């Protein structure tokens, strides 16, 4: 019983950390226009819309975060093997991983922008300096929280996988959660505030992203500020739920039926979420969506 209570405590802590990680991850990727919104940021200058938005596409978010988290975890593992204190090891590992992330971000921006010279897109050094540091700060929070989750799973819950491998797996999960949940809010909503709500992205509007802000020109910090209010927390909730439910089902039901209990509960959770998602989608379309055929007006 004591073990289960301890396990649930760790689960709750990991879930909370995951929520923070998810929301920091989404804000970071939005500041860098990574993932979903990237194609339009890349396309805009080619359509004549020169902009001041940060464009760092290292890879899709899942592989990129798999690297940052696996690297943070691998370095933390190495420091732990050198008998460094666990908290310090995780902080140092995450710091070095963030250094790599920042360097990748600058080279991605420089490379992408220089290759667009033909379309008159200049390299903005101030964008490079101010956006990279903000993105790095958010990435640090995301990596630190994820590596801590991995450490808790490994050291407190006794998971047999070594720390770097857990970092790899949870890094992919983190990137996928942010990419699937928070990014469309920036890519479909924020970039196209000048289009009719719910209109999708018509071909004629391709690349015509919003480039001017309430005052002056929009940059990626404005985008991070905007998505941190809704897209970020939504991604956090998503990743938090993933981590929490995953650990919860393992801890409570692992002993049932030689491990099959946890698997059956996992399938049940998926079924419950599928039903909730379907219901919500239908409900949202009915109430907000322009998907219903518009009523035909009588011919004059």
């Amino acid at each position, binding site marked *: 019983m004591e073990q289960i209570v301890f396990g649930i405590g760790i689960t709750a802590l990991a879930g909370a950390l995951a929520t923070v990680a998810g929301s920091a991850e989404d804000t970071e990727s939005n500041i860098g226009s990574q993932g979903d919104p990237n194609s339009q940021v890349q396309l805009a200058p080619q359509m004549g819309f020169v902009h001041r938005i940060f464009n760092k596409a290292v890879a899709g978010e899942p592989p990129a975060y798999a690297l940052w988290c696996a690297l943070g975890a691998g370095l933390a593992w190495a420091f732990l093997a050198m008998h460094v204190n666990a908290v310090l090891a995780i902080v140092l590992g995450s710091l070095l991983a963030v250094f790599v992330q920042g360097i990748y971000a600058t080279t991605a921006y420089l490379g992408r922008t*220089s*290759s667009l*010279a033909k379309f008159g897109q200049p390299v903005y050094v101030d964008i490079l300096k101010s956006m990279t540091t903000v993105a790095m700060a958010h990435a640090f929070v995301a990596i630190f929280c994820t590596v801590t989750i991995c450490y808790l799973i490994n050291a407190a819950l006794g998971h047999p996988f*070594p720390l770097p491998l857990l970092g790899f797996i949870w890094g992919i999960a983190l990137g996928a959660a942010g990419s699937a949940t928070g990014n469309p809010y920036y890519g479909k909503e924020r970039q196209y505030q000048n289009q009719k709500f719910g209109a999708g992205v018509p071909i004629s509007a391709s690349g015509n992203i919003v480039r001017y802000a309430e005052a002056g020109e929009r940059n990626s910090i404005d985008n991070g500020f905007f998505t941190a209010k809704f897209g970020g927390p939504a991604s956090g909730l998503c990743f938090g739920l993933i981590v929490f439910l995953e650990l919860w089902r393992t801890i409570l039901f692992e002993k049932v039926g030689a491990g099959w209990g946890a698997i059956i509960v996992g399938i049940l959770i998926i079924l419950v979420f599928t039903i909730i998602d379907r219901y919500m989608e239908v409900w949202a379309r009915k109430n907000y969506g322009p998907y219903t055929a518009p009523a035909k007006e009588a011919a004059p």
Partner: protein
Amino acid sequence: MTVKVEVIEGGIPHQKIMIAGLIATIVCLYLSYLNVYTNTAYFSFFGGLAVVAALIWGSHTIKVLCSYGIGTGVPSAGMIAFGSGVIAMLLATKFGNAAPIVALILAAVIGLILGYLANEVLNMKIPVMIQSLTELAVVGALTLMGFAVLITGSFTFTGLTTGSVTLFGMISMPSYQVSFIGGGLVAVAFLLGSIAVQHPFNACLGPGWKQDRMLMLTAECGFLSMIVAAVMSFALISAGAAIISLLIALIGWVYTYCQYIELSKRDAYAWLDAKPIPDVEGH
């Protein structure tokens, strides 16, 4: 293979880069064998140099492959390179000092099969697919082997699966948990390599693509990965050897990073600091 590889306009032809990359990688991997002769780990940094050489070759292969309109497939090209390479590399480590050559042959076979499946079974019909996937698998296997040498000082199976734990600063005992494979560092090496091999083309693609800028970025990515791998190697090899690797990586990285910024400055439309969006005709 009768596939003809197009020469990239105004640059070094791909065949040349491939041959140079292959030879440099194999030579560097074998130079790390000096570790065995001198019974130290001071020559582990050759593993890192092998990584840089293999990555330069690999990123150019990705450029050749992805010229056929595989835009969003750039990161996945890196993943398949290392996914197929890791099998060959792990199996090859069982062959003692023939490991690099065995890894090369095994990876080429795996890559050939994957390329055949992609082109003939999945019907992708991309002319350079088979050759490119073969090359990428070899690049993946040799890069992973380079990381293994850099971090552990050895490319044999025993070296990669056995580490040692020091208790109370005196008693040293073998441990399988504290090793390249047992500790899961192979996962980190996998990602370091697969992101580093796809990033240069992914970052430099576009109408203004330049070969020298992309290859400089690849070298930069290689040395950057070498820095963090050298930090990890402190856990598995002697501090002196790890410091040598770290210093070489830092020097290489600073040089290539500065060069890359210079090349970006050369190719950019304008290099502005806190300036508004310029007026482009028609908007």
